[in-house]
């Protein structure tokens, strides 16, 4: 299982993500720079959180147009798994790899707190370590996580099981439509989510509910390591 993390100027949870992939997957991921046009053979590409290019213009808008994102899209088209967390989710949306839009939080304020997530679809490559409907804890930290899609797209997402995570128990922190916290593409290999599972993977974080995502995508090997 080989993974890679996209590093762009202004991203700042890249180190958190690299730590999570290393601790759970057993080896550090490769890193890919903004100008790279070729991505080595990997099974998973992660775009971490932060403020790529200062979030100027619109969150993720500039990053989505960098050369590296064309390469990511090509890999995704070939079935490689792609996860975008927070700013990564915004970038995937801006790049057209996921539908909808992420608007400013309804409160108009940045919010960093722990929320509850429901695993809305446990039958995905990203969530198979969780059980269907399972409620997990997870932190959020963003200013623009208010997911929106037109009714038609929304109906499709809901109908096809593409809503993967939903804010639960009244903890929606940003006003997202249908409490949507994370969605995947039709092919089931591209996931975007606003919460930060990489910040809840060990005792020091006060819990490990975020591990399930990484264990799901990193496969058998990670489960053995985790149990050991």
């Amino acid at each position, binding site marked *: 299982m080989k993974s890679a993390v996209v590093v762009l100027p202004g991203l700042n949870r890249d180190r958190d993500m690299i730590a999570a992939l290393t601790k759970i997957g057993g080896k550090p991921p490769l890193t890919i720079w903004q100008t790279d046009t070729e991505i080595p053979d990997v099974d998973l590409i992660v775009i971490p959180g932060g403020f790529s290019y*200062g979030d100027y213009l619109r969150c993720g808008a500039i990053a989505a147009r960098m050369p590296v994102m064309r390469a990511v899209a090509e890999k995704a088209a070939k079935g490689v798994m792609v996860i975008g967390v927070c700013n990564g989710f915004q970038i995937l949306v801006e790049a057209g790899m996921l539908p909808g839009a992420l608007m400013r939080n309804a409160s108009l304020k940045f919010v960093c707190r722990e929320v509850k997530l429901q695993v809305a679809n446990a039958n995905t490559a990203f969530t198979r370590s969780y059980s269907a409907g399972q409620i997990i804890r997870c932190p959020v930290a963003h200013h623009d996580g208010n997911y929106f899609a037109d009714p038609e797209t929304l109906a499709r997402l809901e109908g096809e099981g593409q809503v993967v995570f939903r804010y639960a128990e009244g903890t929606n922190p940003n006003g997202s439509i249908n409490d949507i916290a994370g969605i995947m593409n039709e092919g089931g290999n591209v996931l975007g989510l606003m919460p930060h599972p990489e910040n809840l993977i060990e005792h020091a974080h006060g819990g490990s509910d975020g591990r399930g995502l990484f264990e799901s995508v990193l496969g058998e090997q990670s489960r053995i390591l985790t149990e050991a």
Partner: protein
Amino acid sequence: MTISNTVKITDELIAAHGLKPDEYQRILDLVGREPTFTELGIFSAMWNEHCSYKSSKKWLRTLPTKGEVVIQGPGENAGVVDIGDGDCVVFKMESHNHPSYIEPYQGAATGVGGILRDVFTMGARPIAAMNALRFGEPDHPKTRHLVSGVVSGIGGYGNAFGVPTVGGEVDFDARYNGNILVNAFAAGLAKTNAIFLSEAKGVGLPVVYLGAKTGRDGVGGATMASAEFDDKIDEKRPTVQVGDPFTEKCLLEACLELMASGAVIAIQDMGAAGLTCSAVEMGAKGDLGIELDLDTVPVREEQMSAYEMMLSESQERMLMVLRPEKEEEAEAIFRKWGLDFAIVGKTTDDLRFRILHQGEEVANLPIKDLGDQAPEYDRPWIEPKKPAPLAKDDIPQADVADALLKLLGSANLSSRRWVWEQYDTLIQGNSLQIPGGDAGVVRVEGHATKALAFSSDVTPRYCEADPYEGGKQAVAECWRNLTAVGALPLAATDNLNFGNPERPEIMGQLVKAIEGIGEACRTLGFPIVSGNVSLYNETNGQAILPTPTIGGVGLIHDWSKMARIGFAAEGEAILLVGAPAEWGTHLGQSVYMRDIHGRTDGTPPPVDLAHEKKVGDFVRGLIAEGIVTVVHDLSDGGLAVALAEMAMASGIGAEVSQLNGLSPIPIFFGEDQGRYLVTIPRERLEWFNAERLKDSGILAPQIGTTGGRELKLGGARAIPLAAMTEAHESWFPRFMGD
């Protein structure tokens, strides 16, 4: 087209630069001729209070700054303290008060940016931030606007840069109506063998400009920050800088990469007084001259004069002296991160600060007199008048439960969640305790068990009543908060905020507060390794409360044994460690007197430093042994508020029944110092008393037991936790209209 550097030097112009007639005379004596306009600007930038510490230097020298673990004390961009295993912590606190009042978002944002730059300039990656904020009374028409702007400015910069904000303070008092305080703290981790300093070494070496381009923002900012405010304050808005956290994040990565390459001889960030201050400091410290050619400085506006370029406080800029053979490698790193890189000058052997612009020499000044030999004052001061202590029988009564609920839901003791949820407290994945406890705690990356604790403290009303005791208390409380999580306090940074030092009574506050801080730091073994002084916090002659903020750093050897404030289980014994024989006694200057009875008389609680140390060391020992995991220090609001906070943090109530029959008000609301609450399983109590407490010389009586969903204090009615939490959590959102 050439840009004119000739402006006639008049008395008005000199005064507008904040220079006194005797200071101007000194300039004439030094230069031997009338200074050019650019030179006048340079002197103004270097000799203002903010950059020169001319009123405070004499007193700052009395502070203890050395210790076994101190690697670098005051005088550099930040202090450096050894934490073992080849690692060190680099930290400092700095004010951005004046700009934050004028333009709250950018003022606060660039305050955060400035302090982060101070830390990474020394080769450290920032790992934690805190902010100590003081605003005017809640009902003042500007307060909401300032709170909203400052909090979003801090978040806007720190969150994008990527540092967790793990602690801080937010206070309200009418005395800050015209001058708010924004004190920003940052800490970073570095290797002890890779610390970078500002002292230039070697003649004829390239002086390199890095980072963002120079604009006209912030021209004269440091001079503005060295003056009082009046009604025309809005005119000073152009002196406030504009921050760009994206560039700063790139600058951080580029600087750390460059430092690792071995190219850096000296580095200084451009903060207050920008290019002037950074170049002078590098040269003066290294006993070298500096020559700058302004035609090579990257600018973002056209037709900038030498004066503007030298005084611009554009953010996210650095100045370095590089090894010439590494120039190409260095430039490539900066280009990769999309940052400017330009050779703007060289070091010289003549101790002159020479500025060239468009082929003309626009300044030629003695560098040492600008920098480390700037003027210094021994300003007259008078001993502050001590208030009369409260009479022993002067105990205004109130219903204990009502008073507690009122305090928990008051402007100053209510939850600050509304504030800190706008800060990223979790980024970097190392936060072990976020705001809401006694101290913020962050684990040390790359080490299995070590963590660092951070706390920022001062009680301005104590300082106003007695600056000496208030100074002591600020240090003691910081030390106590670090101890309460189980950390060994290592060292501190001080951010001294006062009014106009030209008034002897204000100077007296400064002198006595520093004396108290020094006394406490010496006794507690808690040296001051960095800091900042902010004077002239006055509007129309009304000064702020004296506010010497102390930011402390402590080391936890094994964070698995760290203590927290929330009760851990039901049925545990609650012990009051460090209790005086006669329990709580001191109501003078307490929040109970101020917020329940509207009284601000009496003396503040004295701090017995020997007692403080003994009790603190005892509590820390109990935590390290794993005997206690629940600890909370007593401060504002005394025993009642501390118990309520422990209950609210856990959802477990408590009954305090062992104090019945005593006068409840001083017991529950007295603010006697040097006390902690800890809990212990009841079955271990006998063992604890016999094996740990008996010969310690410390009192730690049981005062109650945890359990239930209510807090019952003595004979007062039981208060449901839900009612306390409602009062505690609702004030701030309601105040801000959410």
